[in-house]
């Protein structure tokens, strides 16, 4: 190394090179700047979510009504509890991570191993929770009617409680078959056919006088507008074109398509970060186990991966606020 250094006559001066003004190793500094750039990517996502929220501020879905599931509590409305639990899981795995870093400072290999393992388990539990959340979101609960303008109409009863399509619609016998690759036009298929046609919905809706249509629009108090019986029937007949069950990137039963898109992209991008975080943690865990850092004389690598892990937690804190709370 020394052989390559050229003498410049400025040795020892501030700009002579060789000093570390930020007093931090190259790896750690670059991790910080990577985190900075990643933070800007996430804020781009969240800011554009804010743009959509402001643009559709009078028709945006109410998050409390969408995320109401909790494991083993079927049919119980439990808004927020599950995401709050996920937040705690991630904060706690951040704590075990910082405990691993702390143990690393004291060169306690067994403690570092133990806390790294806890961190990895926490990360895996979080990923599983997110997968479950996605499953519920994609599957949907009540179903909705799609309008010609690309909006959704939801069904409520007299008390204003949501009613699932299953509860009042009966599918009429139909000759229409799903086009698969093996019949009719070969190697051409189509997406799964909706379970009910618009006609089925109209018949079922007309037969149940206690049902009303709830539009996407929000009232002054932040509730969704519920139409009268006559308005509901007219709206369904004039504007309804089909049903939506669950969510994909084109449409969802919760309301504005952008709501689903942002859900998939923001929580998905964050979940991808958690996944890579877990993988990197596993690599570092095995390195700790085989004594790489013990021989190296310091556990700075644990610190660096720790920075990334805390950042993932930091992002979730913001996603939690802006997607679920605000």
């Amino acid at each position: 190394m020394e052989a390559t250094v050229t003498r410049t006559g400025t040795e020892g001066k501030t700009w002579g090179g060789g000093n570390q003004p930020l007093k931090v190793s190259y790896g750690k500094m670059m991790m910080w700047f990577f985190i900075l750039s990643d933070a800007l990517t996430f804020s781009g996502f969240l800011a554009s979510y804010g743009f959509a929220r402001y643009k559709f501020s009078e028709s945006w879905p109410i998050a409390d009504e969408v995320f109401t599931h909790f494991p083993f509590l079927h049919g119980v409305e439990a808004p927020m509890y599950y995401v709050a639990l996920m937040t705690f899981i991630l904060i706690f795995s951040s704590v075990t991570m910082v405990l691993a870093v702390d143990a690393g400072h004291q060169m306690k290999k067994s403690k570092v191993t133990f806390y790294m393992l806890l961190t990895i388990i926490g990360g895996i539990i979080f990923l599983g929770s997110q997968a479950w959340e996605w499953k519920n979101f994609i599957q949907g609960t009540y179903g909705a009617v799609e309008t010609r303008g690309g909006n959704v109409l939801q069904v409520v009863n007299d008390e204003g409680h949501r009613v699932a399509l299953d509860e009042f619609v009966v599918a009429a016998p139909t000759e229409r078959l799903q086009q698969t690759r093996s019949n009719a036009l070969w190697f051409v298929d189509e997406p799964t056919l909706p379970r009910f046609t618009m006609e089925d919905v109209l018949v079922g809706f007309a037969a149940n006088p206690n049902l009303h249509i709830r539009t996407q629009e929000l009232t002054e108090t932040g509730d969704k507008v519920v139409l009268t019986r006559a308005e509901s029937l007219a709206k369904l007949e004039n504007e309804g074109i089909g049903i939506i069950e669950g969510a994909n990137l084109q449409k969802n039963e919760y309301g504005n398509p952008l709501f689903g898109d942002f859900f998939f992209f923001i929580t998905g991008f964050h979940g991808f970060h958690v996944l890579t975080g877990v993988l990197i943690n596993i690599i570092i865990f095995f390195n700790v186990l085989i004594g790489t850092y013990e021989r190296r004389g310091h556990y700075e690598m644990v610190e660096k991966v720790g920075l990334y892990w805390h950042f993932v937690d930091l992002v979730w804190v913001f996603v939690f606020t802006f997607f679920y709370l605000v």
Partner: protein
Amino acid sequence: MAHDTTHAHQSNTKRIWTVFIILSVITIVEVILGIIKPEVLTDTYFVSLKLINWIFIVLTIWKAYYITWAFMHMEGETKGLRRSVVWTAGFLIIYLVFILLTEGDYVHEVMKRGQVAWDF
């Protein structure tokens, strides 16, 4: 602020658990507010944003401060590194949010005035 190097090998376990308790309490407060949604807070507006949302945002930034300063150990880094990360992110994010929210509000006004049909 400046972290003395002699402390680097001491255990900070007590501080870690304190910060964990603070973060947990803030989260619990957020969840309780989000479930109760007191009318005083949802009906009062401050700079065209509901008071409850201001509270959520302030609590979130407070949590972010603790995670960055205590867990990511930003409090121990030099002023130069701290500022090059925090100030850069702070400036660019505030700028982006300001522009996009202003624009979003404008587009909302356009739709409201009926220049664009969206419910048909």
